């Protein structure tokens, strides 16, 4: 089934608006996505009619809210094809999930001299938490490099994996290059050495169907707001055996079993990892967003975005003065580029005034910029509601920028 973009666009109220008296062309989906009306209504209705703290009261509203929250967990479980609902932990986002695992895994398994492997194309959210852990435990980071076209050099793992390696944490789809990394291959190799793998899915769940059991990752994390859901909600998937083993990363209410001043025992999974009043409305909104993308079909979304990516790549390449970063396949719908002789910030400023929302700068991935020796890129990141006409407008804006600065 082909998705009908024109119908889909009607589901997103924000896409109808104008900026600077021009129709908005929103190509900053890698940063955050716009919300379909079903998600907006779901959150609105919850505040209006259903709001009540979960897992607490015996009253009607609390029971109902609890049920919706736990149903949201099941929706996420099905979306990722996780084996159990209690393998799904609600967090504040990808960053919160990575930090949580870095803390808990670090407490339990990391000691002096141990090593953690990440890649050269990580987002800062999958670098800094590990650096903090390494500093705390006197461990060290090792880096899988990537080639100039944006391909992860997984062969290097043979050299990087040592008896000291405790964990590999790797980005599924690069937020700068769009490269879809061969995580299954990395996981297979890591597992032959009994090394667990965390997959950062912040840029992947919204673009491709993910099956955590098939992938066999030990941890998988993503953010709600990048998959058409609300902000402030994210997912930490962990295999049951790991989540059982790991200590909690936050203490507070709801995550406990018996509390005395001498000793506290923890609640069962997944509540052990959900201290305090959780963002239950965020969780329910996220579930609604997952239902939305599922109703369209991940494969249909992927096919549409792929077509746009190919069209965008060829139109930008035609210009002859655009350098695209990340040309290796398989690639997701992220177009990072620079216009010859033009600073990305200048380009972004002019494009903004033409109604085009792109991101410029280092995209929270400074090591990727250092790889190429550049200050930043312009990034157009596409979503299911973008159109070929919007790519044309992007190309026109690039031409305009070139005449102004080039």
């Amino acid at each position, binding site marked *: 089934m082909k998705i009908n973009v024109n119908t889909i666009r009607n589901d997103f109220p924000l896409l109808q608006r104008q900026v600077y008296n021009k129709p908005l062309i929103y190509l900053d989906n890698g940063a955050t996505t716009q919300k379909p009306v079903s998600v907006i209504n779901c959150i609105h209705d919850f505040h209006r009619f259903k709001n009540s703290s979960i897992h607490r009261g015996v009253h009607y509203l609390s029971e109902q809210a609890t049920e919706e929250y736990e149903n949201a967990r099941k929706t996420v479980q099905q979306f990722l094809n996780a084996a159990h609902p209690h393998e799904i932990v609600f967090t504040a986002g990808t960053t919160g999930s990575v930090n949580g695992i870095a803390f808990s895994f670090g407490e339990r398994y990391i000691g002096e001299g141990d090593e953690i492997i990440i890649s050269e194309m990580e987002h800062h959210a999958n670098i800094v938490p590990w650096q903090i852990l390494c500093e705390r435990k006197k461990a060290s980071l090792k880096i899988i490099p990537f080639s100039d076209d944006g391909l992860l050099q997984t062969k290097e793992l043979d050299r990087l994996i040592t008896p000291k390696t405790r964990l590999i944490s790797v980005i599924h789809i690069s937020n700068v290059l769009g490269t879809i990394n061969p995580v299954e291959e990395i996981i297979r190799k890591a597992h032959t050495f009994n090394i667990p793998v965390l997959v950062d899915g912040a840029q992947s769940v919204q673009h491709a169907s993910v099956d955590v059991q098939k992938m066999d990752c030990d941890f998988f994390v993503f953010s709600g707001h990048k998959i058409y859901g609300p902000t402030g909600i994210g997912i930490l998937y962990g295999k049951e055996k790991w989540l059982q083993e790991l200590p909690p990363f936050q203490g507070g209410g709801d995550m406990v079993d018996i509390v005395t001043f001498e000793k506290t025992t923890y609640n069962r999974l997944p509540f052990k990892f959900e201290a305090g009043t959780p963002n239950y409305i965020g969780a329910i909104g996220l579930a609604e967003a997952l239902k939305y993308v599922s109703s369209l079909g991940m494969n249909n979304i992927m096919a549409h975005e792929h077509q746009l990516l190919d069209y965008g790549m060829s139109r930008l390449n035609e210009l002859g003065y655009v350098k695209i970063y990340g040309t290796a396949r398989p690639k997701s719908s992220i177009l990072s580029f620079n216009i010859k002789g033009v*600073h990305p910030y*200048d380009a972004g400023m*002019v494009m903004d005034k033409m109604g085009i929302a792109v991101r410029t700068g280092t995209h929270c991935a400074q090591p990727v910029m250092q790889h190429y020796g550049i*200050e930043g890129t312009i990034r157009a990141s596409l979503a299911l509601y973008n159109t070929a006409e919007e790519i044309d407008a992007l190309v026109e804006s690039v031409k305009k920028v070139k005449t102004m600065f080039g």
Partner: protein
Amino acid sequence: MLIVNTLYVKNIRDIQEEIIAEFEVYDDWMDKYNYLIELSRNLPLIDPNLKIKENLINGCQSKVWLNAEYQNGTIHFTADSDAIITKGIVSLLIRVLSGHTPEEIIHTDLYFIDRIGLRQNLSPTRSNGLLSMIKQIKLYALAYQTKFSEK
């Protein structure tokens, strides 16, 4: 010295008014940007030897280098940026503030930025180095004021 300045140097308010008038003719953003590109060429460029880390004001989006020199009671700024629009705005800031006394610089309200519609370029979230540059300029002024009032 102060009397000489008020006689021969346009005061900061006059320069700001002058800039506002220049920008009033542009109602289209592209024309405004084209004018900023033009202005970027007027920037008193920093000596390349002074484009060092100590003079770099790092923004996440663009870089600004700034140097200050004190001569006969007034401060003179030179600068550069890797982004042209930033450079254009820097040239405006320097046109307004350079050649004035530390006292004047410290107490200046840079209202022209708002009036020519470039306020968003100075918001902290832009992190293009401009806001830090203004802070740095005022810090230089404060430092020179302290230094010479002690003498």
